């Protein structure tokens, strides 16, 4: 139980750090997926601990939502690449103060 959770935490942290340090939008996106997967693992671990299936169902829904998110996110990346010729997240900084 706790080891599963710990693994989940480690993966989540790695994903978060990845979001922070990687500049390729694709890899940033993969890191987000990694974080989602980490929470899924936590869900499964808790479901097992509680002895019911609600956690697994939550993980399932996360997967569905992640699928939708990937579709839209990748479309955005393609659109950005098409308009700017680059997919570096640092390129997109119109909100600069």
């Amino acid at each position, binding site marked *: 139980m706790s080891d599963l959770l710990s693994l989940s935490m480690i993966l989540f942290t790695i994903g978060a750090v990845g979001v922070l340090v990687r500049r390729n939008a694709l890899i940033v996106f993969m890191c987000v997926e990694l974080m989602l997967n980490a929470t899924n693992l936590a869900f499964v671990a808790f479901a097992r601990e509680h002895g019911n299936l609600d956690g697994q169902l939550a993980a399932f829904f996360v997967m569905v939502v992640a699928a939708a998110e990937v579709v839209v996110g990748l479309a955005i990346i393609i659109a950005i690449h098409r308009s700017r010729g680059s997919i570096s997240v640092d390129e997109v900084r119109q909100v600069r*103060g």
Partner: protein
Amino acid sequence: MVWLLVAFPALGAALLLTWGKESDRFGHLIATAASAASFVWGVVLFVRLLGRDHDDRTVTDTLFTWISTGDFHVEMSFVYDPLAALFVLLITGVGTLIHVYSIGYMEHDERRRRFFAFLNLFVAAMLVLVLAGDYLVLFLGWEGVGLASYLLIGFWQHKPTAAAAAKKAFVVNRVGDIGMALAIMLMFKEFGTTEIAAVGDSVAGTAASTITALGLLLLLGACGKSAQVPLQSWLLDAMEGPTPVSALIHAATMVTAGVYLVVRSNAIFDASETARTAVVVVGLVTLIAGAIIGCAKDDIKKALAGSTMSQIGYMMLAAGLGPAGYAFAIFHLVTHGFFKANMFLGAGSVMHAMDDDVNMRHYGALRTALPVTFATFGLGYLAIIGFPGFSGFFSKDKIIEAALAHNVWIGLATVLGAGITAFYMTRLMAMTFAGQKRWKDEVHPHESPRVMTVPLMVLAAASVLGGILLLGDWITDWLEPVVGHTEHEHVVILGAEWPPIAVSALVTVVVAVGVALAWFTYGRREVAGETPEKVSFLTRFARNDLYGDTVNEWVAVRPTMTLARGIARFDQHGFHRAITGAVGLIGEGASSMRAWQNGFVRSYALGVFVGALALTLALLVVIWR
């Protein structure tokens, strides 16, 4: 179907204000037709009301619920009772005549359509005022009248004096409105309702002090609208408006509203001796003050305005006498509406002939040049001074009689007022129509067109015949269901009881003296072509409106200006600096923090992540404790 009365002129106003230029050609006809339709409908309703039982002459027409919160309900209702009926006939009747007159008077004004729209608005607002079944609805009409008077007084807005006069009328009226608004709030607090009938019923079980406060507040409102001392100053300046407007304000609408309010609130004033006394005092002071002002003015319209003040003072005084005087106040109001409208429109006709010159010292001997105007004006003149048999004779005598019965000194003051009235009106007549011609050669006085003289004739006839209303005490009987009526006590002077005929004789003698004085001063002697500079203190006093504006200046305007300047200084030096300092601080802080907004998404994500870290840490701390 009482609401139709209001609907006609309101619709007319809305139509003319929204319609484009193409309605310039016939806009005035629409407005006149709207007013006339309202008058016709008023006559129909009046006849219907006559057909009803004496005690069943109140028709309530509820349109919709205006306000409904908790226990407080305000119905948009029109109450058509004998009092309102008289007012409706006066407003729409005289109003329609003024509309007709204005067709000729304003013929060459390019904004005539707008003028007629405002006239209609004025009539509609005044009708709302007199038909209201609830003080809040009354207030709606009250403010509507204020707005319409503002628009009309300042109609020639290109003249700075007109704009200033409109503003003054509006501001002074606001002071009165404070009283009105406070009175309504007090009613709501004390009675939980603002319906006029319900308020009247609730008076019985309420503390005397509250009733007195209510009465005084209502009186303040009435003073504002009716130009009573101390809120009289706007009336004389209001002469800046076109003359038909003056006629409308002085005869049919606006200034009668205050008298109407006092009479309509008779339940409140009946219950408070103090409030009644205050009304009498205000009326008396205004009566004398207006008469004195009227004596000294060379401007024909201002002399008439002083006269209006004075006559409204008579009405207020009568209303302050309680049930003995209400009916006479309304009676005088109606007859005054006739002859004052007549004379104002006559004055307009004279000005029309004299190229808009209003100085009476430039007139003289106009009786031959303007025969119709002279005749109608003369009839109005006889009515106002109370020549026996004319309407003013009956209505003013009744008030003087009631005042004498109430208190001899007050009564004698009103008799004196009648004498002064005779003096200044005779002076006006003499300077305008009698004597030698004093106008310059390039002026060619000519009689006004038919569209202007016909209303004059109608009004002159009404001025002569207005006394009929008193036949068989009809007017007191008619108003009795609304305001009640008690015969006043017998007039006792110097221990002897005076019959009414003796009082009339006394008044007539005093009036005759006033006429004679004026005639020998202005009629027989040559009148100076320019206003003499070397005059007695009293004349100067009167010429300056009894220094009313000076008092206002020192009591209200100067302290307010000083306060405003002080506040402005504080605002500029204290407040402004504090604000700009704070703004500068924030601005500098912002620009230094601006650097944090480097536009890198990952940098923001780091912030979010740090936030999540802090939040989780806090949660853990809470759990571990």
